[in-house]
């Protein structure tokens, strides 16, 4: 939707982190289109269900193709879109509930396949669209409408999960730093393989974590986010494990595997190697 659509009545709340993510995606896609001289229609945004998924309807300027499917199924849909036409740039927009809870089962297979798509995950540690219930990244003990006596399961560590599942490009961003985030998304789209940019994107309505993330010197709140050190080697998986073990939320590229081949490259290689009989010969194989 490039112009305001009077019929479309979904709105993000004022101050929502997803505004920053949207701006970052617009910048990154535009930069990529110019860089590789690709038209906007070569981009497909695959959206999940939740506040984050509505991003596909809110993009400004020239419109990419979009598919706004079912809750939790962005990765399978993106799998079909990308392998249906490997020339497309496929971008997933999803949240902590959609991607890590109901959709969690789909991460490992795409990591092993190294499907060449980029997932931008907007993590607000809450189910916003259904009004504030706990999500996989909600911290232990948190009181929400669905955990009225405090959450009794521990919070999932998404970056650690991605690394363990074999995701080949992992970046961590913050919606309050849209330029840096745009750069991470651009790098992720450039990467030939499965890339996830996990974004801290706070929900001002149900769980305002801006202060916790950024810190506040006056209130003596230490920031949770910090930039990965300049000399950090993101191609070293062991270093990535150590970084994630330190606590806090590092921002930047956490890990990238420089050697992995993408699924479409692997499939093309096999296709070129094997000789398939034409259909008439296939039928002939059943001749009596």
């Amino acid at each position, binding site marked *: 939707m490039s112009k305001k659509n009077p019929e479309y009545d979904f709105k993000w709340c004022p101050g929502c982190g997803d505004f920053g993510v949207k701006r970052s995606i617009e910048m990154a896609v535009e930069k990529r289109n110019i860089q590789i001289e690709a038209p906007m229609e070569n981009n497909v945004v695959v959206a999940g269900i939740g506040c984050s998924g509505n991003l596909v309807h809110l993009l400004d300027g020239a419109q990419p193709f979009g598919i706004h499917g079912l809750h939790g199924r962005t990765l*399978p849909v993106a799998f*079909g879109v990308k392998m249906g036409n490997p020339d497309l740039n496929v971008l997933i927009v999803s949240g902590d509930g959609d991607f890590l809870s109901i959709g969690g089962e789909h991460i490992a297979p795409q990591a092993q396949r190294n499907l060449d798509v980029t997932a931008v995950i907007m993590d607000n540690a809450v189910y916003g669209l259904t009004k504030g219930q706990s999500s996989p990244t909600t911290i232990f003990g948190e009181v929400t409408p669905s955990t009225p006596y405090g959450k009794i399961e521990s919070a999932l560590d998404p970056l650690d999960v991605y690394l363990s599942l074999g995701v080949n490009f992992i970046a961590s961003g913050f919606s309050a730093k849209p330029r840096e985030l745009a750069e991470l998304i651009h790098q992720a789209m450039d990467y030939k393989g499965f890339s996830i940019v996990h974004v801290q994107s706070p929900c001002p309505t149900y769980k305002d974590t801006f202060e916790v993330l950024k810190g506040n010197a006056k209130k003596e709140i230490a920031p949770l986010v910090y930039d990965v050190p300049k000399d950090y080697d993101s191609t070293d998986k062991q270093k990535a494990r150590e970084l994630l073990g330190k606590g806090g939320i590092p921002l930047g590229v956490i890990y990238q595997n420089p050697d992995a081949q993408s699924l479409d490259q692997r499939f093309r290689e096999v296709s070129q190697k094997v000789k*398939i009989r034409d*259909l008439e010969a296939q039928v002939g194989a059943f001749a009596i």
Partner: protein
Amino acid sequence: MANKDFVVRFAGEGGGGLVTSAELLAQVTAQVGYHVQTYVTFPSQIMGGPTFAQARISTDPVLSYGDDLDVLVAFDREAYDTHQEEVREGGVVVYNSEDFQLEADGKSFGMRIDELAKSTGNARAANMVLLGAISHLVNMPENYLPEFVTKRFTRGRSGDEEIIKANIMALSLGREEAKNSGFSLGDLADPMPPRGDQIMIKGNDAIAIGAIAAGLDLFVGYPISPATTILQYMERNLIGPGKFVYQASSEIESINAIVGGGFSGRKAMTSTAGPGFSLMSEGLGLAWMAEIPVVVVDVQRGGPATGLPTKTEQSDLLAALHPAHGDVSMPIIAAGTVEECYHAAILALNWAERYQGPVILLSDHALSEQAQNIPRFELDKVVAEKRKVYQGQNGYERYAGIGVSPMPIPGGPGAYVANASEHDGVGDTTHLPNRHIDMTERRFSKLKLLEEDAVYERENIDERIAVMTWGGSKGATREAYNLMTSEGSKIAWYYTMQLNPLPPKLLEELKEKDLVLIPELNYLGQFSSILRSKGVKAESITQYDGKPFKVRDLVKAITGRVQSHDKELVQV
């Protein structure tokens, strides 16, 4: 009079040997011009368990797998006990006397099958020993089998000659054994070879070839009995420029992936069975809502839940019609024979392209494993339809108006959002009441396009009572119908693969009947309940034991229903 038809069953502990025996017998007889059909059933385990495979050989096209056995080959005691009752009066049991002994009963004789095979120098020739014995029992001309063996094992390898020699020796050893037993079933009538080239193929392979012939580009599936061989066929063959095939991590992934593939402009398909089909419900709703062409093949097995993975049933019809929540009506094509599996797959892909939405192809376990001789597919006669693609400017309303509209393809003009939520013309989410009314009507209006090529079979249409089966029960029902009408029964025949939407004229004709009898393999009487909801006086003849209908049972049931209907009329 010479026999025009005989049925041989091989029964014992599971494994490939029994199936190979039945298929070899089918091959050899098909090659000289007989019509054949095999039937296989086995437990859901990798090795072992009671299995049987059988072949029916006939001078006429074979419609069903055969009610009674002319020959039972029992490899062990359990197989003998289980199956010997199905041997017809005057039939013969050949049993493996290395495994067990029977008292002389006037219909059985033992053979030391493995020992005879070993004596040829080729322990794997046991199948040939049996085929030799069977060839004597039905008095098959002596040259058929040696010619078949010579052809089969002439593969340009150094050991060919030795293998051929051992197998021919096995054939004659088996033949001698049977001859010495003194049993014979009489002469086999000469074949009446069908015209034109024939192939021997199973239902699942026919579906795979039909789909590829119709231009399938992308297949994603998950292993599940009895649909797995479709996935395997695709994994071997759906490779090349613009093609993609993959084994998914679940059926949820399969359905969403083919929706993605359909969205990106490809002809996309998956295959599954009951449990997987259930998991695909929500994704089918997505394809319906976002108007994306996809084909889902459901090779039905016994249900519900995990049910009977390796037995046959026709109990997914209601689930196929309304798999998803909300207002949906899925187009359904049900294949009734191995040959129809091929045509149904072509039609399913064409329908999906034409109306831009999901299409369900129903098959079943019995068809999936059934090898049959059918005319060779004429690939040059296939008409593969392609969806209308949008070629105009950007700013297009993809979902405007009633009926189907050209579909934009990523990479081309007309970017929109394919939306699973209710949406406006460009695909943005909306909650306006009028939009939901318009879009709901738009989606249902497209089904009209599938009535354009409505076809159905009709015979004896002036009769007041009709028989109309669906899917894999077609063969047995047709054989029952042929038998009954040849003996003077006054019944009409109707049949179609197009279960939804039903051909409108067919529906009109059915509504005129006093009674429409529907043989179907489920408890609920699913198809008749659909027909009754449309105003047809339909009644089911049901069976739900995991096996296909026997012709004899159908004749009895249909006759009974016709008689009680006539009695009611008299009372009135």
